[in-house]
């Protein structure tokens, strides 16, 4: 049951609109209820071949030998694709916005870093024949010690998961193994708080579980182009990722998608398109690559696990005066999007509250598990869980009603947020008030009268003196660059004056050609390789 509370913030809206605000039927509803909405897999193409991949049975292993001799002779097999057949067999999704280093092959070459990592792709006349050929591929693994826990992965001597990041952490600002947030002096405030509460929170991975699994159909089109029907959630992301991996101009492809059987973040990674297109390129035939359900559940990327430590200082009157957070994103074996989630998570601290002293360290950590990716609430869901459980505990600690406790600490218009931007257009207080009303949860008058538009700003708008970790701050980025910029940098920067800690001895690089040209990170304004 949904009720529109038009009475609240009515003075900020023009409600006299003709189409906006109406519960108009969905444009796609007729298609949905008649089953005529067209998903990627509803495109039937003559002579379509089927692609399946051989997946690693080991979580971490060197590949001594990949023997496809018998599989090549298997009935119905049209083509076997190995890592060396992939034009640029190393990529990272966010290279499109120049964030991070290429760290993930389409098909593993020298090493596998998670159980289920694709090693060989087989294109055959039927799915059955592809499965039969898969059973005939022999892979000789030399198992390596694996690491599955984010904090274990950070310990000295931990197995190196991904040689691109030899410390098992993503590198931020070319210097740090985590993203920082510093606002005020959390340690000083904790020292004088009436109560200090430190807790550990853990969120396990989550599978997106869309009813339609990931997949794509690629087919040769006229004039040297390829048409690609895809379940992607991000069409140009996929187009440009495929153009990079397959080393062709992006207008080689005509991508068609648009109606997708659920995504929730699990269809951003461009997992099936590059190999489907490569299969079509190598065979000249339409090729379909669609995940089975077990494949989707086990090797489709999950929302990564997060471990979060929260240390809060609260006063007897219920004011939270300090919040210190250490969070670890379990990225799995490759970066995908977790690096970005960590920054988003840092920006989200300390939740929708005005807390004068906030300290955050957020890590993106590599482990030997299925690479994680975005999911509904990316970078925030687990942190909200931690913060809101913590808020409940703090309210309990000081003997306050949890609703009133939240209203007391809620951010209001004009307050300074920990990422140093003024809070505007806030409405947390009103949400708490209305939820209380709906749930018949009594709150006292002064809290019923509170407003997001009152009592903010002033002393709450001040950026407090903030100690930083480094004595010499690197200069501010010299220039903003647009996203999608893969040109060499036109600006150079001074290296940070404090040299970064020495890196461990270099690990063997993948044998695959590295094509990661020196690029400019538009996000962090630093050179990347």
């Amino acid at each position, binding site marked *: 049951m949904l009720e529109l509370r038009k009475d609240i913030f009515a003075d900020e809206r023009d409600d006299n609109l003709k189409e906006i605000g109406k519960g108009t039927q969905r444009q796609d509803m007729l298609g949905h209820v008649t089953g005529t909405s067209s998903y990627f897999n509803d495109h039937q193409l003559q002579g379509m071949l089927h692609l*399946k991949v051989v997946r690693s049975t080991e979580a971490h292993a060197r590949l001594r030998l990949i023997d496809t001799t018998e599989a090549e002779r298997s*009935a*119905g097999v049209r083509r076997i694709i190995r890592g060396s057949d992939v034009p640029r067999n190393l990529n990272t999704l966010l290279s499109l916005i120049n964030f991070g280093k290429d760290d993930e092959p389409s098909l593993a070459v020298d090493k596998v870093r998670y159980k289920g990592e694709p090693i060989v792709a087989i294109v055959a006349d*039927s*799915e*059955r024949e592809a*499965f*039969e050929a898969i*059973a005939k591929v022999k892979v000789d693994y030399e198992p390596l010690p694996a690491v599955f826990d984010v904090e274990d992965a950070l310990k000295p001597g931990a197995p190196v998961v991904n040689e691109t990041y030899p410390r098992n952490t993503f590198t931020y600002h070319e210097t740090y193994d985590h993203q920082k947030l510093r606002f005020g002096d959390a340690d000083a405030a904790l020292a004088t708080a009436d109560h200090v509460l430190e807790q550990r929170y853990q969120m396990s991975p989550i599978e997106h579980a869309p009813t339609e699994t990931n997949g794509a159909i690629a087919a040769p089109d006229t004039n040297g182009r390829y048409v690609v029907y895809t379940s992607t959630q991000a069409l140009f992301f996929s187009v440009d990722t495929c153009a990079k991996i397959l080393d062709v101009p992006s207008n080689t492809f005509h991508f068609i998608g648009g109606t997708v059987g659920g995504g929730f973040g699990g269809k951003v990674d461009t997992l099936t398109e590059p190999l489907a297109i490569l299969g079509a390129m190598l065979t000249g035939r339409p090729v379909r690559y669609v995940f*089975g359900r077990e494949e989707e559940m086990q090797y489709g990327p999950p929302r990564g696990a997060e471990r979060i430590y929260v240390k809060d200082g609260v006063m007897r009157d219920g004011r939270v005066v300090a919040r210190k957070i250490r969070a670890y994103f379990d990225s799995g074996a490759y970066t995908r999007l977790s690096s970005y989630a960590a920054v988003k998570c840092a920006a989200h601290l300390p939740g929708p509250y005005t807390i004068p002293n906030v300290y955050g360290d957020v890590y993106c950590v590599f482990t030997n598990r299925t690479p994680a990716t975005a999911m509904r609430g990316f970078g925030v869901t687990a942190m909200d869980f931690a913060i809101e459980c913590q808020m409940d505990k703090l309210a309990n600690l000081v003997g306050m009603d949890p609703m009133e406790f939240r209203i007391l600490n809620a951010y209001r218009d004009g307050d300074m947020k920990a990422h140093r931007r003024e809070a505007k257009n806030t409405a947390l207080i009103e949400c708490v008030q209305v939820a209380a009303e709906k749930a018949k949860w009594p709150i006292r008058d002064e809290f019923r009268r509170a407003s997001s538009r009152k009592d903010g700003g002033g002393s709450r708008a001040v950026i407090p003196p903030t100690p930083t970790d480094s004595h010499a701050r690197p200069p501010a980025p010299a220039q903003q660059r647009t996203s999608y910029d893969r040109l060499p940098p036109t600006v150079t920067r001074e290296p940070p004056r404090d040299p970064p800690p020495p890196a461990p001895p270099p690990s063997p690089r993948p044998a695959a050609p590295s094509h990661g040209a020196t690029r400019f990170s538009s996000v962090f304004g630093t050179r990347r390789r």
Partner: protein
Amino acid sequence: MAVIVKTFASASEAAGALSSDRGARYLGGGTLVMRALNEGDVSVSTVVRASDQALTRIDASGPRVLLGAGVTFARILAERDLAFLHAPARSIGGPAVRNMGTVGGNLFAPTPYGDFTVALLALEATVAVQGGFGSRDIPIEEFLQARDRQAGTLVLSVSCTRPASSEAFRYRKIARIKPKGGSVITIAAHLPISGGRIAGARIAFGSMAPTQIRARAAERALEGRSLDVGTIAAAASAAGEGTSPADNALGSAWYRREIVGVHLRRLLSGQE
């Protein structure tokens, strides 16, 4: 190579084909074999079927009930004379799976599947099988213990004695998801009462061991006693004895051991 499908008019011919071909699997309702094919199980190269009407026979008129191996759960639910088996039949899958899945197939379904078999185990059913050299009857417990070696055998039917009263047979599947969820634990209890005392107590568990098992310690605690609070408590505390549950996606061994007695107690005392 496409899969070869062989359809036979008689169960014995099908059994012969099954026992002579290591790559052959018998197709009942399809919920196991078709899934294996869809998922790329290349060990299945031949699918054997039988159109023999004996396989879909139900004989529920007398005290001894016989169900052909090909009888679906939906058919059991449609049969008023099989009311005592309705709860276990209803606990299988959703409606489509109940329209397809069969009594015979359920005997081979690995954990977390195979709930109907738990009921059959508590009822001490007999499994009629046909191998390459003729047919024979096997007590269900023996059948389950040797199940992994039964690949080449065709199940023809199962039979069991009807419980004396509806009170005497109880069944509960503990699932996380409602109304259709995989089994955390499945419990079936057959407690015939004679002269106010339990005579011939049979308790069976699913998901408490690699296959469905009898809970003999709990049975002993019930045997010869009246079904009162004390007896039920004794049975509940003995429930975990002799079980060897495993961790799986639905629950851990620890959890199963912790709650098996709680659920047995609730089942025996008629609690929700």
